[in-house]
């Protein structure tokens, strides 16, 4: 089979041993790559009830068959492990050059078991694999570590998947960095690396990636690359995702002050349009991407953060901006810079800080609890300092926040749990729960916890194809179809920003065929997406967390909005239950949210059918 390297690296950190294992053709075609192979690994290799921070947890890196080819924006990889933040299926997708480089080195993925006795990094140079001492890198931030690894190996072209000090200190929301500005952000995958004393994986590859039909793939992709210069990607290429700020604010869907409101009176000041004029220094691209969405921003000379650099996306901007009542772009740039260098997820960080701010304003947290910080909404200095302490687990307050919003709220008690805007332990993304209700169903049912990139269900609301201020039984099928499609995108792995260029699943199937030589229809590919999603769900069910009770949004979603826009809007419980039923029905699961034996068997997941199916 072409496209795939045909082998993956299996590592045992405790024994400092590795082996090259074949990636079997039938596994590849059933689970495609990326997310699919991550689900396959987690299901097969992580025993039920494993403590995510114990050496028994398994963490894996997987590319897709398209990585290292001319397929647009295909240099991607996923990292999956049992999440220390949520205790369930955890994974994140990352761009940059690491995915393609791993493929050029001749590997589809890396599966890491065990724990090193002291800090190490793994250096992969084609077939040569070394365990390198990382004690001199321990404590260094993610950017510095990247530079140091390149320097000590005398090669700028090395690509690195690396953690910062937050992951070493087991901050639950720790992320993994690549190329400085790109992250495996969600679910605390960095924290798992930290728990294994694995500072980084560095890779250099010099081998060819062969595809099944190079000439046809070249022509096919050339057209898509040209399309990437058109209308379908203009939002990402020209304005960057922060253009969402004004669009969502007008819809009353811009999460503000810990999701209390969907409009922000200072939205204009932190808008993508404004940022483009005053702070964007350059728009860059990842490897093999002709869109180029990376808006590198620079804090202004006159600000106290002068010279600070950060890559700015909408989610980070809103989470560390309006969500915390902040309307100063320089402060937001500094906050994102801290998140990237110390190595934590910007979305989770913002939601945790906003939770603390609301608790502080409501008197649940006092200055005594915050180690003296005046955590009022809009206090940029306090936010930046609290963020730093969380990242470094400094003091009582820093340690409280470092556990994630669910843990922190449980520790505080006194009703604080109500203000932790999370589902299954994962902090909510930047789409208002009451103003975009199909999105909320997608967030709530998502296998990793509250995330928008597993189904893209917010699009039905923002594009106006449904009434976004109510729920009904038409929404379930929309969400489950989105999950199947996105599972494929995350397995091939393609960039979601290029999704406008692929009109239907058959286009993606065509890419798969030209790359691998395996003929597959769009419907077959979609079925693989369903298989992958069902296996990930089964993993959660096996852990005792994948049932109906886990698929509800936070309390706040059911309380009426008090904004001028969408005034009085909220999710009605009966409508939510109806929509949730329709979701389970369209998935072929029981009304308790558990995949049925028949469904799992029909997808070729016999072991899962036996273990968890009903």
């Amino acid at each position, binding site marked *: 089979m072409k496209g795939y390297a045909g082998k993956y690296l299996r590592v045992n950190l405790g024994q400092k041993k590795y082996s090259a294992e074949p990636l079997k053709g039938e596994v590849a075609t059933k689970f495609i790559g990326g997310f699919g192979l991550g689900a396959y690994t987690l299901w097969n290799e992580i025993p039920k009830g494993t403590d995510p921070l114990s050496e028994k947890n398994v963490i894996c890196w997987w590319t897709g068959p398209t990585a290292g080819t001319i397929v647009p924006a295909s240099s991607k990889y996923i990292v999956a492990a049992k999440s220390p933040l949520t205790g369930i299926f955890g994974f994140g997708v990352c761009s940059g050059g690491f995915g393609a480089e791993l493929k*050029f080195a001749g590997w589809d993925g890396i599966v890491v078991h065990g724990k090193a006795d002291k800090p190490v990094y793994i250096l992969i140079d084609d077939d040569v694999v070394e365990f390198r001492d990382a004690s001199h890198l321990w404590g260094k931030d993610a950017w510095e570590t990247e530079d140091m690894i390149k320097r000590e190996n005398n090669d700028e072209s090395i690509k690195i998947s690396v953690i910062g000090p937050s992951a070493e200190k087991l901050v639950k929301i720790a992320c993994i960095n690549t190329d400085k500005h790109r992250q495996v952000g969600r679910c605390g995958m960095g924290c798992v690396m930290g728990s294994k004393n694995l500072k980084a994986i560095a890779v250099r590859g010099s081998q060819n990636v062969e595809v099944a039909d190079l000439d046809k793939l070249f022509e096919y992709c050339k057209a898509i690359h040209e399309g990437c210069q058109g209308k379908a990607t203009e939002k990402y290429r020209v304005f960057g995702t922060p253009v969402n700020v004004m669009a969502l604010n007008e819809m009353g869907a811009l999460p503000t002050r810990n999701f209390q409101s969907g409009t922000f009176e200072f939205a204009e000041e932190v808008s993508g349009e404004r940022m483009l004029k005053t702070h964007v220094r350059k728009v860059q691209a990842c490897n093999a*991407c002709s869109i180029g969405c990376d808006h590198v921003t620079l804090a202004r000379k006159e600000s106290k953060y002068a010279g600070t650099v950060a890559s700015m996306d909408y989610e980070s901007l809103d989470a560390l901006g309006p969500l915390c009542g902040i309307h100063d772009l320089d402060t937001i740039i500094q906050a994102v810079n801290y998140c990237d260098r110390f190595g934590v997820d910007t979305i989770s960080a913002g939601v945790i800080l906003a939770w603390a701010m609301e608790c502080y304003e409501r008197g649940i947290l006092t200055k005594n609890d915050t180690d003296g910080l005046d955590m009022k909404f809009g206090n940029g200095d306090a936010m930046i300092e609290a963020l730093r302490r969380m990242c470094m687990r400094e003091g009582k307050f820093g340690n409280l926040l470092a556990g994630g919003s669910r843990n922190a709220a449980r520790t505080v008690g006194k009703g604080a749990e109500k203000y932790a805007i999370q589902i299954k332990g994962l902090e909510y993304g930047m789409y208002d729960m009451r103003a975009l209700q199909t999105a909320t169903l997608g967030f709530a049912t998502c296998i990793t916890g509250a995330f928008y990139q597993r189904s893209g269900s917010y699009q039905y609301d923002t594009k106006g194809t449904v009434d976004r201020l109510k729920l009904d039984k038409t929404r379930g099928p929309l969400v489950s179809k989105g999950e199947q499609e996105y599972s494929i995108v995350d397995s091939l792995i393609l960039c979601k920003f290029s999704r406008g260029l692929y009109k239907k699943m058959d286009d993606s199937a065509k890419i798969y065929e030209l790359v691998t030589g395996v003929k597959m229809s769009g419907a077959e590919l979609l079925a693989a997406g369903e298989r992958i999603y069902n296996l990930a769900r089964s993993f959660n069910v096996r852990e005792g967390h994948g049932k109906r009770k886990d698929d509800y949004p936070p309390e706040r979603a059911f309380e009426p909005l008090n904004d001028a826009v969408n005034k009085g809007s909220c999710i009605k419980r009966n409508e939510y239950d109806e929509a949730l039923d329709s979701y389970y029905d369209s998935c072929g699961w029981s009304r308790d949210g558990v995949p049925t034996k028949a469904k799992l068997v029909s997808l070729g997941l016999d072991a899962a059918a036996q273990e968890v199916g009903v």
Partner: protein
Amino acid sequence: MAEQKVLGMRKVIVCDSEKCNGCQLCEYACSISKEKTTNPRLSRIRSVRIEPTFNMAVACRKCEDPPCKDACPRDAISVDEKIGIPKIDKNKCDGCGWCVMACDFGAIRLNVNDRTMVVCDFCDDNPKCVEFCPTKALKYETIDATGAGLSKKAVNRIVAELQEAAKKD
């Protein structure tokens, strides 16, 4: 092919660093066109990023008196004076890499598959990287034309400013 002895009048691959976003697709296009496989390390053009925000791609500059030719201990590199494109004789080249060290631009590379050196041949005056470049940062033109383009850009800016000023009056 145009016969040009003067360096400034030879067409070279010019990269506008303002437009270049570092996507490396020039490297992919080159390796596919020249080696019939995907491997950016086989590309004759190299994409360079200086963090945080500077991007540029570099290929052979068609030097008038090319140091790569002089550096080769096996006389494997010949240069047609009329067009300035270095040619590497694969039978003579043993991949020692002295040419790489001699070139100011790092424009010569090792083909890791056959272990000989490779350099841009400008695809019969129609470079595939230029054709593929999604942001149109790459151009195949003479330095003189690049200069003329920049002059025109500067003058255009003045014209626009004058027009703007006239509107205000």
